[in-house]
């Protein structure tokens, strides 16, 4: 820390005279050399945490199995052409509706006589897309608001906590249905918006708790004494050390969002006909499951496997990141 003393007077006066405007050049200009050591330390520690985790993860079967499933489903979503020659809702023949699995139709056919295998392949894209995009938005909101609430405390914390409570208390299915009915179209965009609106509260509490735990650590105090701005402390010191549990919950959350999206599709208020998704297939299958169980089985298996993979992945990452549980 002695090495940094020469830089200290440069950052100090700037901090005292103009805390808000002065910090911007301070954060932009000084870090390269002056804070290199502190920054390097933090980066080194964070890297070694993730490095340790990776070292632990790559030896686990319960890490590689979900990764394999997700790669498969991810490829289905990105390039469905690799798996099936048929486009969405293409080559349907009502004369061969509701057939069981056979050589010509591996997964049988659906109510309109479309090939069920092609349908299941095309269903991967909206399902995965919504799961990942919703989680990314919710993650971003949770990180920003959780950081502000945990770091500043006081009225900011109270305001954010009450706001979280308001959304947390809304029943998910009913809340989502009310909003979706108000939308003229129920495309991927509308679904994403609704799921973010009702799902951003899950991660924020964890982020806030982590920030509070890190906020008063010695290295944060040291950075503050060295004259680092609030913004710099938050982004360079608190954030890297508070993020790991939130990332774990985010991974688990992708699975929950996918299940929630499928539930809304299933109820008929989610994605609509020309779209293809696993939840929508289950919605169309619901009146015929007793006589044609394959209509339920195939999308259900793919849906459950995908959700399961995200859950297992989250669990594996958590076990790797948290040495206490070993």
């Amino acid at each position: 820390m002695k090495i940094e003393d020469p830089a200290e007077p440069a950052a100090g006066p700037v901090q005292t005279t103009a805390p808000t405007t002065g910090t911007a050049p301070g954060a932009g200009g000084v870090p390269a050399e002056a804070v290199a050591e502190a920054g390097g330390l933090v980066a080194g520690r964070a890297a070694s945490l993730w490095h340790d985790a990776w070292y632990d993860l790559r030896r686990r079967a319960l890490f590689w199995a979900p990764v394999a499933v997700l790669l498969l489903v991810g490829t289905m979503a990105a390039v469905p052409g690799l798996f099936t020659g048929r486009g969405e809702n293409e080559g349907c023949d009502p004369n061969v509706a509701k057939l069981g699995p056979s050589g010509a139709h591996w997964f049988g056919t659906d109510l309109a006589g479309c090939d069920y295998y092609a349908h299941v392949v095309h269903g991967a894209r909206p399902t995965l897309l919504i799961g990942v995009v919703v989680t990314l938005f919710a993650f971003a909101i949770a990180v920003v608001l959780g950081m502000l609430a945990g770091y500043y405390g006081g009225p900011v914390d109270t305001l954010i906590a009450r706001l979280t409570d308001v959304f947390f208390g809304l029943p998910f299915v009913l809340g989502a249905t009310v909003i979706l009915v108000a939308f003229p179209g129920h495309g991927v965009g509308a679904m994403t918006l609704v799921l973010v609106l009702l799902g951003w509260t899950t991660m924020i509490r964890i982020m806030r708790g982590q920030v509070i735990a890190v906020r008063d650590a010695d290295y944060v105090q040291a950075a503050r004494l060295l004259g680092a701005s609030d913004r710099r402390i938050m982004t360079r010191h608190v954030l890297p050390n508070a993020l790991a549990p939130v990332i774990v919950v985010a991974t688990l959350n992708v699975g929950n969002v996918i299940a929630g999206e499928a539930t809304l599709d299933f109820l008929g208020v989610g994605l609509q006909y020309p779209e293809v998704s696993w939840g929508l297939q289950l919605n169309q299958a619901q009146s015929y499951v007793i006589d044609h169980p394959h209509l339920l089985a195939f999308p259900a298996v793919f849906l459950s496997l995908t959700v399961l993979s995200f859950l297992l992945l989250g669990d594996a990452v958590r076990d790797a990141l948290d040495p206490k549980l070993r």
Partner: protein
Amino acid sequence: MWRYALRRLLQAVPVFFGTTLLIYCMVFALPGDPIQALAGDKPVPESVAQALRARYNLDDPVLVQYAKYLGGLLTGDLGENYTGQKVSEMLGGRWTVTASLAVTAWMFELVIGIALGVWAGLRRGRLADTLVLGGTTLLIAVPVFVLGYTAQLAFGVHWPILPSAGTDEGWPVSYLLPGIVLGSLGLSYVARLTRTSLAENLRADYVRTARAKGLSRVRVVGRHALRNSLIPVVTYLGVDFGSLMGGAIVTEGIFNLPGVGQQVFQSIQLKEGPVVVGAVTLLVLIFLLVNLVVDLLYGLLDPRIRYE
């Protein structure tokens, strides 16, 4: 203790107003004219429409409507539907169905979930533990409606052991299968929380002390380790009761139970705002109250927790 309870109650007040206002605005922002919806395609005479609008405060700004609604709510009046039916009457009998279903699911979570969790927690790293962890992960991954149809096919159609639709046989028989399906997700979380928390506490100093005093294993686990381990479980159970009531809609649909969820789902589509707002407001109230009770329970479970 009383000061703490009062503070929590005061905190719940803005949340209550916030949530109900939010749901109120969402519902009444629904496109379409509810008065026109009453008449279908036929035109509504202007004088009739005006009279109806005045009667249901539809001409006021949303905030004024909301204030009038809350005023009625505080005197126990949930308002009426646009066809003059009392909302409290429409929902009355349905609350019993939904509450019976939620309570069945909740009991199932509580009893089986904690039992499984204790079983796994005491045998950490062994076969029982692996079985419980694997089984609960699977249950979490399968969406509730898939589970519902599978259970209905298996135990209602192929091996008719339990009633699979309707409420003809009353509580508890008719509610067993739907209750188990609805509670399976929560059961998994309860079992996992109990397991982790118990396994952690079994290594605590006070448990070692209890063991060193020569207490029996049942007493050490039951009175010392489990009681403290139940705090995260009770928190979860509290939050979950609200989501069971609100999430019962899917299960009610599959098992054809005439509950609140079904009614609200229909009402949303028919733009019957008062019914939707009334039901959701009550759901939010239940959610807040259960959570308040849970917070106060902590002190009973863990003597180290003191409310100032």
